[in-house]
């Protein structure tokens, strides 16, 4: 393997490393095959959760996210991350602090207490964006890296909210990523793995977990998830793929809670795109820790392996 063309500080967040470690393992291995090295970002913390922390005090939210950004600035590396919620915190706070001197000054006043200073010297990317943008990897390279095409699998995409919305504030180089009404760039990435991407009703709806609603009113939160699951059932998919471990938790563990609370069973396997990519590049379900998922991935695996 030749030396990696691109290097990023890999910001993990909470749910990927602590609930779905397969997302982390698959990202590191799969991206390496595609010429992107993900280097540990030592001492990073929760992003912090944009809904929970932002709701309490936005100033704390800015300062906590800035601390994570400074760790990467000290490594002189751009950040790559694999969670939409983390993207909202880390990308958006980076962007806000770079463009608002008053916010930057406020944050630096606090960071001074821990001998840190936000300088605004790095950029932040989602791994899905790196995979899609041919400046880094691109769909063709993803397709070329596939050794085990996920042939015959019908896969729907859950984009989640915080990577792309609000599009007015986002600065993606690929224009197709700015389409928040009916994006199809993730479907291109699903096709690249040999699977069939499937459209469904109200694809861009939220998973229902965000901003503490899952903790505040679980039934309300699950009802939003359930609406998506009803729409997914309608088009008979083998799996749902996401690019946000928090959405994944809501759809995966959420299905168990939906069964308990609403008495409806879907049995729909939910996999992060990194996990799908790992499978398509020949990683085994064991290598990906798919047994940790709340909903068994077996029916889907039988189809593609």
């Amino acid at each position, binding site marked *: 393997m030749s030396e990696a063309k691109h290097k990023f500080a890999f910001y*993990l967040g*909470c749910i990927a*490393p*602590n*609930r779905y*470690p*397969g997302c*982390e*393992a698959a990202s590191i291995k799969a991206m390496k095959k595609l010429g992107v090295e993900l280097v*540990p*970002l*030592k*001492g*990073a*913390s*929760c992003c*912090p*959760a944009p*809904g*929970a*922390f*932002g*709701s*309490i*005090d*936005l*100033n*704390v939210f800015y*300062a*906590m996210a800035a*601390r994570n950004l400074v760790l990467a600035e000290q490594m002189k590396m751009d950040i790559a991350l694999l969670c939409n919620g983390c993207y909202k915190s880390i990308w958006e706070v980076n962007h806000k602090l770079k463009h*608002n001197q008053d916010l930057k000054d406020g944050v630096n006043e606090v960071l001074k*207490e*821990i001998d*840190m200073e936000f300088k605004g010297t790095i950029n932040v990317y989602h791994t899905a964006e790196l995979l899609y943008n041919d400046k880094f990897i691109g769909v063709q390279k993803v397709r070329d890296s596939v050794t085990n095409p996920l042939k015959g699998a019908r896969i729907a995409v859950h984009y989640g*909210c*915080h990577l792309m*919305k*609000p*599009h*007015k504030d986002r600065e993606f180089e690929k224009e197709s990523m700015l389409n928040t009404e009916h994006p199809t760039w993730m479907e291109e990435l699903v096709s690249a793995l040999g699977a069939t991407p499937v459209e469904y009703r109200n694809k*861009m*709806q*939220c998973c*229902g*977990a*965000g*901003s*503490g*609603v899952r*903790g*505040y*009113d679980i039934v*309300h*939160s699950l009802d*939003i998830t359930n*609406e998506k699951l009803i729409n997914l059932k309608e088009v008979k998919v083998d799996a749902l793929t996401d690019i946000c471990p928090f959405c994944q938790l809501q759809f995966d563990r959420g299905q168990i809670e939906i069964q308990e609370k609403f008495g409806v069973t879907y049995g729909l396997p939910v996999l992060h795109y990194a996990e799908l990519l790992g499978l398509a590049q020949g990683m085994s379900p064991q*290598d*990906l*820790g798919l047994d940790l998922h709340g909903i068994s991935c077996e029916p889907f695996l039988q189809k593609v392996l």
Partner: protein
Amino acid sequence: MVRKKGYPEALEKKLRDQRYYREDSNPEFLPKVKAISRTIAHMCFQCGTCTGSCPSAPRSTYRIRQFMRRAVLGLENEALTDPDLWLCTTCYSCTDRCPRDIAPTDVIMAMRNLAFKRDIIPVNFLKTVQAIYSSGHGVPNNDVNRAARERLGLTRDPPTTHMYPEYIKGIQTILNHYNLKANADRIVKEREG
């Protein structure tokens, strides 16, 4: 700010409707919301695109448009004490579609910040603060996951504050700067004993 116009009683009653300013309008509320949210909340013309885009609206009485109106009219108490304030999942669909380029989601966030100053906050938000204060993570690692990580060829604890707890002190300093941990502990204790 118009509070009372001295019209006949029937008209006064109509004016107390929430389309208009009322006795309890606080003219300071809108500027406070604007300063925290950094969005042009006063530009809302009540088209309802926000509520129409909201995944929480069809399954509750939460109406983001109503909160936008409350911001403009200064109906501070009504906004901050409404339990629906906490039903926004911050999906940003309303912000994505707002024809006036307002960020209603950020208006909600600002109102939640103002509510917290009055100790109005669901307890689950504070528990996330407590978890991050002690471990650096909102969703911390556990033994089942540690074993799984090892099996996957990863370190038992991720290379975050979990593997390098010496970094937690910095996080605690930030949270203490805003007195957030003390406030969280106090409120959780008041609610749960």
